[in-house]
């Protein structure tokens, strides 16, 4: 009966033996962990070598690849120096993020710091030469997809100037100022974007009251805030009717 109290197997030796066993297991674990990482590294570099061309030229493939890496928890663009520098993706995205930043800056006086991703894409493809890099050897036009631009903006957000994306209805907007836009503003933007109420990109206080059932005060406050930031333009016609225009939602003529 007495031995029963002591326990059986390893438990008999006591806590010290447990600890030793645990350490042994840990050592084995760590070694195999490192082996696994190395195995993964070789697999990834083989993949990268084979598909390097694809990734650089085809935006669809690129998007899929980035998605895969996101699922795996790997951030390809975190550093040029690391393992992923071999892919050459870094240069592509950093160049794109610089271009996007410049486009946003150039249009800030017009739209107050909020711009559609589609518009950025159009500007880049139409006036591409103005933003071209001096050493860029790509004579063929690199086509950027909207997803590429969104990834580039995500990377820029680390620099603290308030770069971020926000979804308004059907389109994605890039905000390049650190100003905050709260729920009311977003709703108004959504409404302006909606074709079914009034014309596209314009809004009157009556529209807001009709759809969102806000009171006069609330509408005024939100619109004035947006005006102060330069994101909305006020238009008073001869009858004194006020309409509010959103330059960021206008589409460029093709």
């Amino acid at each position: 009966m007495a031995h029963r109290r002591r326990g059986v197997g390893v438990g008999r030796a006591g806590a010290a033996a447990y600890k030793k066993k645990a350490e042994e297991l840990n050592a084995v674990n760590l070694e195999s962990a490192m082996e696994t990482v190395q195995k993964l590294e070789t697999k990834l570099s083989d993949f990268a070598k084979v598909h390097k061309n694809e990734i650089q030229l085809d935006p669809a493939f690129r998007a899929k690849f980035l998605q895969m890496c996101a699922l795996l928890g790997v951030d390809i663009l975190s550093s040029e120096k690391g393992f992923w520098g071999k892919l050459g993706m870094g240069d592509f995205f950093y160049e794109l993020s610089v271009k996007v930043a410049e486009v946003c800056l150039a249009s800030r006086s017009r739209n107050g710091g909020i711009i559609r991703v589609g518009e950025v894409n159009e500007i880049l493809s139409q006036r591409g030469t103005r933003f071209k890099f001096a050493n860029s050897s790509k004579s063929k036009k690199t086509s950027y997809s909207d997803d590429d631009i969104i990834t580039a903006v995500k990377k820029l957000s680390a620099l603290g100037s308030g770069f971020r994306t926000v979804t308004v209805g059907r389109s994605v907007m890039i905000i390049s100022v650190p100003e905050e836009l709260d729920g009311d503003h977003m709703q108004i933007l959504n409404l302006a974007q909606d074709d079914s109420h009034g014309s596209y990109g314009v809004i009157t206080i009556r529209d807001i009251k009709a759809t969102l059932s806000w009171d006069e005060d609330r509408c005024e406050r939100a619109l004035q805030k947006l005006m102060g930031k330069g994101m909305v333009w006020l238009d008073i016609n001869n009858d004194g009717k006020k309409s509010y225009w959103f330059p960021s939602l206008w589409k460029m003529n093709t």
Partner: protein
Amino acid sequence: MASSNNKPRRWSPLTCLGTTNLSPSGLIQLESDAGEVETQCRTNCELRYEGSGPLPKPVDNSSGFTDFWTAIDVNLSCHVTTHRIVLVDEKESIAGSIPYPLVHTAEGKGGPSFRSPKASYKIELNTLAWGELLIVFRGGERHPYSQSGKDRDAALTAIHRAQKRKAWEDRERQAAKEAARPSQTITARKVGVDAIMTKNKLLLKENANLAETAFGGNNKTTKHVSKKKGNQEDIDAFMREATPLLKVIQKYTSTIERERRAAASSNNDAAKQHNDTEKLVAMLENMGMTSALSEKQSGSMYHKQLARQIVDFLRHNDKLTKAGGMMTLTDVYCLFNRARGTNMISPDDLLKALDLMKDLGLGMSRRSFQSSGVLVIQDDAFDDEVMAKKLADLASSSMKQKAEPIDDIGGITVIDVSRTLKIPALLANEQLQSAEQMGWLCRDSTIEGMRYFPNLFQAATSC
């Protein structure tokens, strides 16, 4: 750069080598138009001269030296480039170079032997100008001895490769090759338009060939179309193989956490485990899996060098001073990457480099504004008080000139400040807000925007 003129220079092997100019932040200035590139860099090295008697002082500047000769320089970093070997004493900001044309042989010496199991790893350089010089590698902090072996081997391979390549003779070789190209020789015999057209055709053909050989064959482009379908399957196949591996790694991240905590509390035999954990974390970070928690690294060599490069870039042509002593990180990022063209840096790299700037004492640092979270790089000489006073003066002077008392109410806006001081609107906004907090300005917020006026309350209460 270097030591000031009144302090006597140390008389040691380093100062007797070829003069090397360092940039304001301590980086070597490579001759990029000659195609010089740095291939290796190792720290914790020593330079020794084994000959009897001292080395002769350099011819161009033989005065200003101390009379005392020391045969050993310690705590140097050894940079191997394609054209020379440069040794830098970072603390004193002096450097010396040994060009390859002057190096007869470079051999590895030292390492464990029967009699001295822990003899240091060295490279013995047989030079034509300075006799026999010894570069000794002292290794890193963790594994000094094995690290020094690796350092020595890496440096030696780089040196041998550079010697074989003879990059300094590239210019002449290039010129000779140009002259020998068929496009040149053939068209030497033709005349007029015919010559020009033939030359063009041949040139294009040669360039195409070059491109092909450089990129290892063009079988990819012909197969591109048919391979499109195959790509999706490739990705799927890859995902299938990689996912289980990734899951395993994620399991180990929790192990790492445990190890870290264990290592922190008990530091005797958990030490060995700790090292392996660190190695694993380093590997994961290299792969970009930063979610595997990285503690604050002491700053890799790459980021330290990047920090210096950024500082050099901003000081060149006084970019930072012209911008008012302060620049948003986005601006720095865009300017720096545009200047680089290729081999660009990521935003994360920029942030890491900025963190190191303060410790390296380079005269600039990162600053974040509390209210809006805007990040800027700021010259250490920048003073908030000075800027606030400047803005207060601007505001007061705007009150004086009143052409139409009704339309012009004075006061300054963000746009005014931005235009006058030539700083971006974002920063103007921040400066105005901080000036207001310090009590120099008062704000007036209307639907027309924000105007700032000199703080008359302050002036009123003081008198």
